[in-house]
């Protein structure tokens, strides 16, 4: 479904990724892991087109999307939930969802479906998104991504800095979405969450893939060592 080949990118002259390759098969959940600063977010930003590619290719559904703009990638069916529970702070919760729905020209029922994933948002629809708690904002961020009815969901540390009760809800939601056949590319720092959710994993270090495998291999000591701070 998604295939990244020999990807190199970075910020200005500072190179961050040195030839990263990975694939996500249809319906698969792949977890990108690694310590802080190894290029996980850079990888997602490049896949999404926020950062320009220095070299290498990104293909989605067999189509080369390396040079497409972010909004064109969204229209092809990729949805992105960036790091840090981003919202449009001065729009209402409903406004956040609507503006995304309108941009993707989707049907209004997509909005209801997204809210069914996080029913906790329903009483908050009229509230300004900037005043929600971090956990609520993250739920909104995921719901907003789902409004576009994506075929592939990309999540950047969706549980980072979120209160534990909501972490469970978010984890369960990701599990259900994956179970319903959605392809997911997930960046996650915690091995236990990755173990519960992922089919496969990829570990980055210093902008390169240093290890990949089936989720159960995450229990191995060698892998634990790669992730230890």
């Amino acid at each position, binding site marked *: 479904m998604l295939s990244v080949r020999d990807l190199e990118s970075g910020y200005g002259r500072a190179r961050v990724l040195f030839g990263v390759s990975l694939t996500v098969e249809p319906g698969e959940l792949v977890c990108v892991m690694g310590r802080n600063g190894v290029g996980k977010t850079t990888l997602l930003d490049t896949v999404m087109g926020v950062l320009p590619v220095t070299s290498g290719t990104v293909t989605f559904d067999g189509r080369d999307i390396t040079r497409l703009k972010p909004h064109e990638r*969204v229209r092809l069916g990729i949805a992105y939930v960036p790091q840090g529970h981003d919202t449009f702070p001065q729009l209402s919760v409903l406004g956040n969802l609507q503006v995304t729905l309108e941009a993707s020209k989707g049907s209004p029922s997509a909005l209801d479906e997204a809210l069914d994933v996080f029913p906790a948002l329903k009483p908050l629809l009229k509230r300004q998104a900037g005043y929600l708690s971090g956990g609520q904002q993250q739920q909104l961020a995921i719901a907003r991504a789902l409004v576009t009815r994506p075929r592939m969901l990309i999540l950047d540390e969706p549980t980072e800095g979120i209160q534990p009760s909501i972490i469970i809800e978010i984890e369960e939601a990701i599990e259900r979405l994956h179970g319903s056949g959605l392809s997911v590319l997930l960046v996650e720092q915690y091995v236990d969450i990755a173990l519960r959710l992922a089919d496969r994993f990829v570990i980055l270090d210093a902008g390169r893939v240093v290890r990949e495998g089936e989720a159960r291999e995450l229990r191995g000591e060698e892998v634990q060592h790669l992730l230890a701070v």
Partner: protein
Amino acid sequence: MEAFVNQLPIGLSIGAVLLLIALGLTFTFGQMGVINMAHGEFIMAGAYTAFLLPGLFVPSLVVAFFVAGAMGLVLERLAIRHFYGRPLDTLLLTWGVSLVLQQLARDLFGAPNVQVKAPDWLAGGIGILPYNRLFIMGLAIASVVGVWLYLVRTKHGRRMRAVMQNRRLAATSGIDTGRVDMLTFFIGSGLAGIAGVALTLVGPVGPSLGTYYIVDAFLVVVAGGLGQLRGAVLAAAGLGLLNSYAEFWSDASLAKVIVFAAVIAFLQFRPQGLFTVRSRALS
């Protein structure tokens, strides 16, 4: 006391013109971060539009909106969009464009000022309130309300606000930010065109008309708080009144000194302007 009262409508109508100009700048400068020195020349273009349509005052408001808006759109597409995130380069670029446009106006219409005949129904007034100045205030209020409704009630307005609040997120949410920028520039510049038509009611039209107002309009945006509609309204009224009273009790040059000093002093106490965005996401 009588002089004080007589000066009131003058101050308020200057404030109204500043507001019309600043309204466009709250979009392009306050929210997109583009310092567009050519914004003043969109005012001038609006004023000359009124000059070219004698006897058609109200239609010229609409035409001026589209003329100035189209100029802004072309400027954004051809030049400014290549300089996003580089404010100093943008400043130089648009200043150059501003000089070119002024010279173009001199070539087309001649260097001397021209007079636009105000429509008869704007002659006279109620007591100390001349109709023409009342009309300008009404126009400014209508524009503010129109812009507010557009931002809050329409799809495109909502999209615009989303881009202003979080450009990156807007792009990755599927919004074509380039198109939104284009439209934002169109509307912001169009409002300057309307301000230009309004200015023909209170003075002559010349190639350098815009330069008289552009700095004050930027002051309004900064003092009101970047990108804040209500801040712009209050700051425009305040600056307009201060301007006209200072001018009345001293002279034009000293008045500018007083206004600048007042704004600098104000910004010492509230560097963020009258209003600011407060939310968890930004704190």
